[in-house]
């Protein structure tokens, strides 16, 4: 598979976040510009250095990027807004990578910014009738997948709850996380049931937030004299959408497996080479299913692999060291960019209090409404 990022080296030079929040009255430019200014400061750059901008947002409406970025001063650059449901920020990040790889610009801002909205879905406007009004609801879909997994693997509901315990614990160490309290297994299991075996503490919160990164080309590194020790390379970028798999294989699982496999092939690594993975676990069952689908562990071993501590910070591969969607939060547009920021911070060795000891290779993986996927591999360079 052709990888334009092999021929054109792209790096993350700066990261910045606004803490993820419960829905609030703060205008989105305040939240977004906090992240953008932090990313610029982290990269040691002034705003006029940036030559293009990609904005991931799902709920703000038209032209949210320009409305926000004009407060930094007009520079006349390209500002493109991208929406891909939960993966909006990941899609914007990929667009930024391809922009630089194509040589259209050398310094690019990618920012995800959002406020909690009504979550309008195209699948509710497609003119199609469903047997059940829940047919397009992700919570119900994953509650059904959780029930099937527990039955097929003959494991108890504690297997699901352990995902939330780990990720709430990681989030409690992350100053940008929406939830900052560790939870015990008993607390997670005793929280109110929402759907099937999923309790409320196994579901991601709604909220507002922002995350930003500065991407640079190899040419910009030389021209701007950037410190290579703080650069993290983007060694793979993949986008896929749902296919019709063989009977008995869930399309969502096939989507995860294919997108991950393609990204790892682009980066010339295997799943067991990964030190860090940030993945979409809006609901606890997803982390178990996806660690299997990604090949981090054997099929059917996801629950055991987590219980044995392999996905903890300090384990074989830290999964959702940020706290993930369940702990850090899922403000939609920012989430995928926040994953990139977390992996960059870890690879730099700057994740104080939650640092994974061997952080060289990371995978950021997001899905959007279970039907599109984005996968990026990030790699230590120095």
């Amino acid at each position, binding site marked *: 598979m052709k990888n334009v990022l092999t021929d054109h080296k792209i790096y993350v030079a700066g990261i910045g976040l606004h803490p993820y929040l419960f829905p609030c009255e703060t205008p989105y430019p305040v939240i977004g510009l906090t992240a953008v200014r932090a990313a610029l400061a982290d990269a040691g750059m002034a705003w006029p250095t940036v030559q293009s901008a990609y904005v991931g947002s799902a709920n703000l409406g038209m032209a949210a990027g320009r409305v926000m970025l004009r407060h930094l001063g007009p520079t006349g650059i390209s500002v493109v807004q991208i929406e891909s449901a939960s993966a909006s920020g990941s899609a914007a990040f990929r667009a930024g990578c391809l922009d630089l790889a194509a040589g259209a610009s050398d310094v690019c801002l990618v920012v995800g910014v959002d406020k909690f909205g009504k979550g309008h879905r195209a699948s509710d406007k497609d*003119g*199609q*009738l*469903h*047997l*059940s*009004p*829940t*047919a397009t*609801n992700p*919570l*119900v*879909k994953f*509650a*059904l997948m*959780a*029930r*099937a997994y527990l*039955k097929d693997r003959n494991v108890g509901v504690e297997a699901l709850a352990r995902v939330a315990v780990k990720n709430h614990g990681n989030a409690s160490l992350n100053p940008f996380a929406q939830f900052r309290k560790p939870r015990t297994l008993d607390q997670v299991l005793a929280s*109110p*049931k*929402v*759907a*099937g*075996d999923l309790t*409320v503490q196994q579901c991601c919160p709604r909220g507002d937030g922002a995350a930003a990164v500065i991407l640079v080309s190899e040419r910009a590194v030389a021209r701007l004299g950037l410190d290579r020790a703080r650069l993290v390379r983007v060694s793979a970028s993949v986008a896929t959408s749902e296919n*019709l798999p063989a*009977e008995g294989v869930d399309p969502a699982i096939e989507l995860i497996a294919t997108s991950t496999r393609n990204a790892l092939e682009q980066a010339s690594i295997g799943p067991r080479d990964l030190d860090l993975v940030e993945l979409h676990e809006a609901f606890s069952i997803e982390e178990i299913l996806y660690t299997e689908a990604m090949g981090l562990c054997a099929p059917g071993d996801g629950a055991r692999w987590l219980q044995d501590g392999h996905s903890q910070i300090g384990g074989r591969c830290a999964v959702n060291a940020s706290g993930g969607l369940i702990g850090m939060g899922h403000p939609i547009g920012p989430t995928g960019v926040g994953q990139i920021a977390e992996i960059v911070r870890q690879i730099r060795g700057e994740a104080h209090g939650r640092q994974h000891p061997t952080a060289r290779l990371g995978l950021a993986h997001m899905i959007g409404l279970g039907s599109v996927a984005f996968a990026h591999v990030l790699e230590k360079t120095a």
Partner: protein
Amino acid sequence: MTGDKTSTKPIAGRSAPGEPGIWLLSCDACGTLTFPPGAYGCQRCGTPREQCSTELRCGPFVLRNFVTIHADVMPAMKAPYVIGEVALSDGLVEQALIDVSDEGALRIGMTMRLLDESSGDGAPTLVRFTPA
């Protein structure tokens, strides 16, 4: 039972003897069945709906999975209620409302019956399944 090739069908209907069933889109090119019947093309090969047939399936419908929804996650539906995955034909599984007061009454693999609630024109108005 095969219907016409062009109309936008409701998702449920009745066979000539009056048995309730679910309409599916049947691809004339590859034979794949698609739900809903109003899909704009075959889910496998993309053949336009206008070049497909519709087919009323009256069973057997098989329950593949189920959960109780405990919270009011859908504006129009008051919890608790039960959602199942029902096989409408081989390889075609859809979420559906299950008409039981307690999921304890269900087991995976059981045959389901389409509930017979109809308006004046005879077509089922609320599509729900219950154990046969």
